[in-house]
């Protein structure tokens, strides 16, 4: 009798403890502190497209809120149809998030100022990535998300795939000469230096920069003239076309198609690599965004050789 009762109690205890045993509280360190999660989140709201990109890559299907605007075209089909729109990238709809009462809220870069407010409502993490070590930052985020959603294995695969892709791009770039990343915006040219959001092309891929002074890390998006391109004459030109969404595809190419640029080696040898503007500008901290960009880099190098 006692034995049976004791057995029942034991059984009940095991049954009760079972779910929590596999979901121990985990502590997530992130850009703005440490957040403790009691269990695997069953609903998550993201205020940042790069973070959405990473969740999507991990196959997480409990995304209930996404930004209302600026959806990168390559992600458009991946957004759950019933996901709630939770405000702009800069101003998340805090009340909407509070009303939905998600298990986890993710902020990053543009929405990170909402962290203090959101962290008072629901467990919130800040996945802002430091551009000075972008690849490692993205991989750390994937690993973090993998730990949170119990997808460590998948996260490991993604990190490995990313590493492999970086390695492939690195190999493709090796010995190919110098590079320069520019942005075209409203008919003007800006140059992206080390420390900018595309610095990983110089750092992670080992593309030698045409800058003499690599410490010049705060300078990104500086206005330059066509003469600058003519004189620095990088072997490869990477172009982020901010006008692509406005002036139609090929706006940057039309801008570069002129008598001065025709003189350059990169134009004559067709060594211009156009980077997906949404990926380069909005989701460069996301797995798929980064893979898109890396594939474009690799394809660019291979097509030309």
């Amino acid at each position: 009798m006692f034995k049976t009762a004791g057995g029942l109690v034991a059984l009940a205890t095991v049954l009760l403890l079972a779910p929590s045993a596999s979901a121990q509280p985990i502590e997530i360190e992130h850009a703005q502190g440490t957040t403790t999660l009691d269990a695997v989140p069953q609903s998550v709201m993201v205020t940042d497209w790069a973070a959405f990109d990473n969740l999507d890559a991990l196959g997480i299907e409990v995304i209930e809120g996404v930004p209302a605007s600026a959806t990168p075209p390559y992600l458009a089909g991946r957004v759950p149809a019933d996901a709630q729109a939770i405000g702009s990238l800069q101003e998340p709809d805090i009340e909407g998030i509070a009303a939905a009462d998600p298990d986890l809220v993710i902020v990053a870069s543009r929405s990170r100022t909402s962290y203090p407010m959101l962290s008072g409502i629901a467990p919130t993490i800040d996945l802002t990535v430091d551009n000075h070590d972008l690849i490692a930052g993205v991989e750390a985020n994937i690993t973090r998300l993998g730990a949170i959603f119990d997808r460590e294995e998948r996260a490991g695969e993604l990190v490995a795939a990313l590493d492999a892709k970086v390695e492939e791009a690195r190999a493709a770039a090796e010995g190919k000469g110098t590079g320069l990343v520019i942005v075209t915006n409203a008919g003007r040219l800006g140059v992206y230096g080390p420390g900018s959001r595309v610095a990983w092309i110089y750092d992670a891929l080992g593309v030698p920069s045409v800058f003499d002074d690599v410490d010049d890390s705060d300078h990104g998006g500086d206005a330059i003239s066509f003469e600058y391109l003519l004189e620095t004459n990088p072997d490869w030109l990477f172009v982020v076309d901010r006008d692509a969404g406005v002036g139609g595809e090929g706006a940057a190419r039309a801008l570069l198609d002129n008598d001065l640029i025709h003189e350059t080696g990169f134009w004559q040898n067709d060594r211009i690599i156009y980077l997906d503007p949404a990926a380069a500008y909005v989701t460069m901290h996301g797995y798929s965004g980064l893979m898109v960009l890396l594939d474009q880099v690799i394809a660019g190098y291979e097509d030309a050789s």
Partner: protein
Amino acid sequence: MRSGRAAIVIAILALLALVSVAAFLTLGARGSWSFVLSFRGKRLLALVLVAYAIAVSTVLFQTVTNNRILTPSIMGFDALYVLVQTSVVFFLGTQMLVLADPHLRFLAEVVVMAGFAWILFRWLFLGEERSLHLLVLVGIVFGIFFRSISTFMQRILDPNAFQVLQDALFASFQNVDTTLLGVSFALVAMASLVLWGVSHTFDVLTLGRAQAVSLGVDYRRTVMTILTMVAVLVAVSTALVGPITFFGLLVASLARALLGDSLHRHVLPAAVLLAIVALVGGQTVLERVFSFDTALSIIVEFLGGLVFIILIMRGAAR
């Protein structure tokens, strides 16, 4: 008769302000009431504080400078705010803007802005008499000067940093850092107390310098006191939510037009109530009609400019 009109106008405005407040707190609420009320309550407090600061500072600035056109923001204050913020990012980096102790940053901004305003006002308004259009011009030039320096710094900044900065430059009532409410409240209360102490001089100052002096007002000291407090108020409001250029002009002019007189005991409460109606009501409309997509400052800029032009036209046609 006049007093009667003022009382009616103020009563109606108070009613409208109450309606706006009620609508702001309750319309379209989802989820738990306790959260909604406390969340909206804090934002409401911020909006009311900003409305109060802008209305009072604009009315008193116009009293002291003896005109109805100049406002602190037209004197380049919003541009100065942008410059202060840009300088913070420029010299100290983005991290500063996001992570530094907000109280410290806020106080530093208030001190810098108040200090500058004090110097500028002193130079402009306490020296010899100057023609009003010279002052307008100087104000506009200062505005462009500050804005150009900011743009210059922004051009040098990393585009990522610029993105963060751009967010900070839009007047935002959605993401008011409510941790700053306490400090702001204290500063506004302090300024109000000081102003209360000299409030008996307000109507006399409207008569002009010579009249005020002959009526026994210590002109220099009073004016400097008021201007310094105006600087604090403007600094608080701009630092709290960002630049809103024409708002003060809008509420001060509307208040006078509605009242038909310029007595401060009428104009001040009417302007404050109008400001509350416009900000709180405006934010309510924004959230329901545009669903967060557009910063209120854009709409205030649009409506403020529009209403003012209409006001000038009507005033002249009459």
